[in-house]
């Protein structure tokens, strides 16, 4: 058993606990101690629930003693703070919800609790998940553990930082346009955006309802497979959640890629602004798959270039409606104005940050009478074309290998005045959300000394092949979090 308990994977922890070498109380104490000692440096958490975590750990140990342990019983997990937790403050990193304590659990929280996982706390994000660096958080910016002058990515930044520095064993994120995969790539961990509908959104505070999807952010591909199985499945209270049975994602995960067809999109490597290091990492991943015995099939995604403009119409349109309920009247922080309309204006004016306001305005404009056909309607049509591109490409292969981001983690403040350039950096991730397809980000190398991942894209509900292909790559490569931690020069303080 390793000495630095907080750097354990789900599997290592579960093995140690089931063999009696470790208790959840010990493991949770170790994780909380790690948080206590370095959280100030990395700033992953908005809320740490130390007392609650210890109580859950004690119950998890009882559960194990009673022979009812699951794959994640007693394992500390952190949750992106836009997923509601009963009795535990859920802020969405917005000042408007600074004091909001939900009266109910999200479906995935109920599933994690039932499985005996230990919820350590709620992690930082861009306000209401709008952003890709956590710089839009209403409270503070999280730090990239590999270089604290850089962003961890976002919006699920805190959920990438915490597992990377040992502030939890695994994390839950949420991905609307890359919000799991991009920070996973920036922080050197594994992130999975499941198929839209695979994991229920009940309790996930909606940013763009047709794009949001909850998923695991873990230290290994196997951990992501374990975690997804725990949180996936139908929720009757969510009309968009699928009734398909959830498979055991570990079953066949070590099967390798021999005989599999991996799609590759060479034209994407010519994308404007792509870092040569990213091209190299992606090419190396392709070569690795060839060496592993996969057949590389070149495919095209001709409409993917329109995904940014499509996304930044559809997402703000949905945002403009989803943000409407935050008026401070029934919950949240109210700022009184002269009259009712004044109270609305002050509450929302002071409560929301710049990016939220920007998207509300863009969305309200795109949906306005006279503009609807030109914007929303047209974007909805292009969305269909993008989905068709993926579907045609995936007819020719089992999974597509793509870059995740055009460049590695950037400096804090680097894009603060250039929102458009930051939007453009979502080019490789948005398409999957528009098409509803699953994606897996796996660490694949280093660019400018920062971690860089690649992305595997699969057919709807075929997460299994992604885990299998991702695991084959991880087993062969030397870029996993464990490798990185082991390399002494990159050891985290």
């Amino acid at each position, binding site marked *: 058993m390793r000495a630095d308990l907080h750097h354990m994977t789900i599997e290592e922890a579960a093995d140690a606990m089931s063999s009696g070498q470790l208790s959840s109380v010990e493991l949770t104490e170790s994780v909380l101690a790690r948080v206590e000692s370095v959280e100030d440096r990395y700033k992953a958490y908005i809320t740490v629930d130390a007392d609650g975590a210890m109580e859950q750990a004690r119950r998890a140990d009882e559960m194990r003693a009673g022979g009812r342990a699951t794959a994640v019983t007693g394992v500390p997990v952190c949750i992106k703070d836009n*997923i*509601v937790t009963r009795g535990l403050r*859920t802020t*969405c990193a917005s000042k408007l*919800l600074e004091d*909001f304590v*939900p*009266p*109910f659990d*999200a479906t995935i929280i109920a599933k994690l609790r039932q499985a005996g996982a230990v919820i350590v706390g709620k992690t930082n994000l861009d306000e209401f998940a709008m952003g890709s660096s956590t710089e839009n958080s209403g409270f503070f910016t999280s730090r990239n553990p590999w270089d604290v002058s850089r962003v961890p990515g976002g919006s699920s930044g805190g959920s990438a930082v915490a597992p990377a520095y040992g502030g939890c064993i695994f994390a839950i994120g949420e991905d609307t346009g890359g919000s799991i995969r991009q920070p996973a790539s920036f922080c050197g961990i594994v992130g999975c955006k499941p198929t839209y509908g695979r994991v229920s*959104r*009940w*309790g*996930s*505070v*909606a940013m*763009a*309802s*047709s794009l949001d999807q909850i998923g695991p952010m873990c230290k290994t591909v196997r951990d992501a497979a374990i975690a997804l199985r725990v949180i996936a499945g139908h929720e*009757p*209270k*969510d*009309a*968009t959640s699928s009734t398909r049975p959830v498979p055991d994602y570990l079953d066949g995960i070590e099967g390798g890629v021999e005989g599999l067809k991996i799609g590759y999109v060479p034209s994407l490597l010519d994308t404007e602004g792509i870092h040569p290091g990213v091209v190299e990492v992606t090419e190396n991943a392709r070569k690795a798959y060839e060496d592993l015995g996969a057949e590389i099939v070149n495919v095209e995604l001709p409409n993917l270039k329109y995904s940014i403009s499509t996304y930044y119409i559809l997402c703000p*349109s*949905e945002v*403009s*409606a989803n*943000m*409407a*309920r*935050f*008026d401070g*009247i*029934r*919950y949240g922080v109210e700022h009184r104005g002269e009259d*009712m309309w004044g109270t*609305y204006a002050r509450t929302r004016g002071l409560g929301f940050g710049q990016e939220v306001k920007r998207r509300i305005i863009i969305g*309200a404009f795109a*949906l*306005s*009478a006279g503009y*609807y056909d030109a914007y*929303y309607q047209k974007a909805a049509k292009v969305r269909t074309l993008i989905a068709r591109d993926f579907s045609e490409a995936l007819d020719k292969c089992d999974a597509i290998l793509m870059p995740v981001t055009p460049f590695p983690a950037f400096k804090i403040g680097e894009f603060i005045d250039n929102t458009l350039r930051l939007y453009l950096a979502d080019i490789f991730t948005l398409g999957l959300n528009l098409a509803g397809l699953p994606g897996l980000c796996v660490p694949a190398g280093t660019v400018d000394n920062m971690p860089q991942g690649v992305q595997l894209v699969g057919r709807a509900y075929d997460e299994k092949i992604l885990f299998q292909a991702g695991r084959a790559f991880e087993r062969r490569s030397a870029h996993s979090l464990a490798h990185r931690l082991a390399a002494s020069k990159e050891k985290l303080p």
Partner: protein
Amino acid sequence: MTAYEPVIGIEVHVELATQTKMFCACENRPFELEPNSATCPTCLGLPGALPVANSEAIQLGIRAALALNCQVGEVCMFERKNYAYPDLIKGYQISQYALPIGRNGFVTIHDDSIEKNIQIRRAHLEEDTAKLTHRQLSSGKSISLLDCNRSGVPLLEIVTEPTIHSAQDAELFLRELRSILIHNGISRCRMQRGEMRLEANISLRPEGSEEFGPRVEIKNQSSFRFVREALAYEIARQSDLLDQGQPVKQATVGWDSEARRTFEQRLKEEAHDYRYFPEPDLPPIEIGKDWIERQRRAMPESLDSFRRRLLQSGISAADIHTVVMNDTVEFLHQACSLYPDGAGSILRCLIRDVFSLVNEKKIPIGDSNLTPVNLVEVVKLVDGGEINFAAQSKILQELFAEGGSAEAIMKRDGLGQVSDAGAIAFEVDQVLQERSDLVEQYRAGKAAVRNALFGQIMKRLKGRGDPKQIDSLLQKRLDG
């Protein structure tokens, strides 16, 4: 003076008679429960909550579309209608826009023997808002209270084409519509509970013209009479303006039922832009032919056909109108299907006794303990000659208040009719002997005293004598 043609369109919102709300499993009983007790994260609009469409509401929507002779939409799809107000807890209302559940239908109205079709443009499903109550505290401070029991209650909005041309037809349409909705179990349409809310718009144009004049909208009415009166007032007011060459201003008005005039409501100047877009939380639901057929089969006989059937059985159009244009229509239909040969008796019983009970007790028939089953039981006792009308009234009174079995009440209270010929003959002869003075008067040509004799005989039989037997025996003796 020019003759003007009124052009009237109507919009009606009705709350559907479902068990649960439109998009969550909360009870649909906004009127009865403690404020905010029938609520959940969904109808409170809490962050993270999601809607799921209530299939019972969709079924009632399909039935409404069928009952209003509409084309039923092939896909049930919802959209978000965006606007801000504190009673709209999500900041948008989930409604239907591009694809309503029903469109292009009609309702036939009956004005004496004239039938007219009122065109229905669309009928769509949506959710109700929460209820705001404004109060002043003893400290003088004004507060507004929010009750979310009504938030998310299923609503059906029905919109006519502007093809109604008189205030009277507007009222007839509304009454007919209400009967259709009640008859088909779509809504209870209890006006005082806001289960049916009315809006009308009206413009005038010179007769023969095809163009529309500026529209005046009459908002938020809860009474058919008020709609008719407000429309009649607007027709007169607008005609006067036009006669004087003055323009009619487009406006939204309310009806002051005491001053008996419309008054302009202050509204925001700009036109609303609701920014509709497809509700991403609710995937479209396909409404197959099978589903529609299943609903059609589950519906009762149409109101028009029922009305024709009653007419054919010899009941007067006026009596039919009285009952059909009433809350009791569904009750009547159920009773008639239990006792198909007794439609006339059932109708008579409703008009003679039940309506007065409803008025007297101020309890709608649906909330009383009277059921179609025990009503039919009473009517059959009368038709079978076992009780008379006086007993019918007494039994109905008890059934209305307490429920129970008509026959049991009859036996317990000894209300059974005396049909024994011997007993009746005895009392007839006794009275004729005692009141030979009246008999003489009758024979001298004063026919009215016959009723007095009849009354005395009935009194001696404690009101339970078979009136037909008494009548014929009395006549025989007087003639003899």
